[in-house]
């Protein structure tokens, strides 16, 4: 016999279920319990950067929008730095920006939305080019057994997207389009539309991170 390795196995994932709102966004479940809720507005009055809105639907394999999904996002600040001790880039840390939020898709329409700032470019892995501005997405819902990871890139960053070390891994390259949110100007508001397709011809690229 050889010595046994003492690594611990990960706790297995289970679906978030239809009532995920109770635990993570109780107001949407229909009640008020915490003094302070986490939500879909990532910015405060002093947050630096260009304010943007992100919105979209998560579609199932029958092209119907999920009305019970929970979406979380994690992103760098406007300068391209994450508010986390492992980020030691020499860029400004914005103490008014955690960089994380969560949203439930609407029970009637399925639309989700976030209010945030456009992130800056972040350093890539050593030996790789910088990553184009992007936002990390994580999607859970009833019927999703393990959370789905993807990324949202920006349609007005074509040059940076073309050089992005992650987008360039996606084959066939037409699937890269599934990760690019489309910019819309709505009055004074800048809105990026990011629809996520769980299946079908337009299935979004999901990552094993």
């Amino acid at each position: 016999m050889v010595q046994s390795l003492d690594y611990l196995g990960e706790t297995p994932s289970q679906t978030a279920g239809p009532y995920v709102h109770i635990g993570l966004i109780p107001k949407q479940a229909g009640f008020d319990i915490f003094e302070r809720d986490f939500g879909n507005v990532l910015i405060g009055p002093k947050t630096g950067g260009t304010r943007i809105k992100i919105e979209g639907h998560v579609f199932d394999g029958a092209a119907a929008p999920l009305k019970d999904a929970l979406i979380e996002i994690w992103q760098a600040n406007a300068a391209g730095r994450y508010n986390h001790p492992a980020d030691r880039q020499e860029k400004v840390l914005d103490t008014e920006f955690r960089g994380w939020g969560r949203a439930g898709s609407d029970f009637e329409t399925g639309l989700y939305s976030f209010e945030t700032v456009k992130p800056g470019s972040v350093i890539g892995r050593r030996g790789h080019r910088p990553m184009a501005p992007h936002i990390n997405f994580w999607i859970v819902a009833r019927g999703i057994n393990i959370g789905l990871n993807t990324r949202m890139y920006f349609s007005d960053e074509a040059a940076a997207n073309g050089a992005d070390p992650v987008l360039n891994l996606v084959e066939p390259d037409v699937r890269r389009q599934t990760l690019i949110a489309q910019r819309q100007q709505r009055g004074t508001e800048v809105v990026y539309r990011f629809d996520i397709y769980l299946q079908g011809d337009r299935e979004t690229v999901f990552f094993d991170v």
Partner: protein
Amino acid sequence: MDWGSEFFQRDRTIHPPALTPEYKTSVLRSPRQPLLSLQNSLSEVTGPVFGHNELGSLDNDLILNYAKDGEPIGERIIVHGRVKDGTGRPVPDTLIEFWQANAGGRYRHKNDRYIAPIDPNFGGCGRTISNENGEYWFRTIKPGPYPFRNFVNSWRPAHIHFSVFGTGFAQRLITQMYFEGDPLLAKDVMFTMIPDDAAARRLIASIDFDATVPLDTLAYRFDIVLRGRRSTRFENKLQGN
């Protein structure tokens, strides 16, 4: 601790697959293309940080945090445990959120139509942050089992939903805790879809008699293991800086 090192590749053989036809809702909600494997960058090894001062003093006490004119009906229990990573190191200061049905198996949720009544004194959610040793605890009422529409006669065993963050967004995990000795586990599609028996058993909390409060509250222990991260001793650094 180097919070910037990469995570071990996730062992997906211990997780339920995306497509599990016996859980019918998964059929239209599971990706059909393979996941694209991504070596970790800063985007995956970093994640949100939460402060202990962001939570209210009753957030980890489901017996009191929604009590209106009395305490909720049901078995009083403590749930406690430790959050560790795959190398056995504690995961301190991480946000843990939990939600559940009441003692009758009914959720306080707009979309729950089960015949069992809402408990006016029970919200069914709470949250806490692990201490410097990765330990957490909360007090609640033992949830009841309930039926759900999958097969005509499908029942969920008693369970508490858990959401855990870890130190990097790639550790993000949602799972469910079950109770030792529940006869409904063997028929539950959520539990039995886990392909690895040893992994499935990690979701069953043990009764912890030493942690009970005599004459007052029973206790269950539920440890949570998040993905481990590499030691950086002989490895290329993740970043250029």
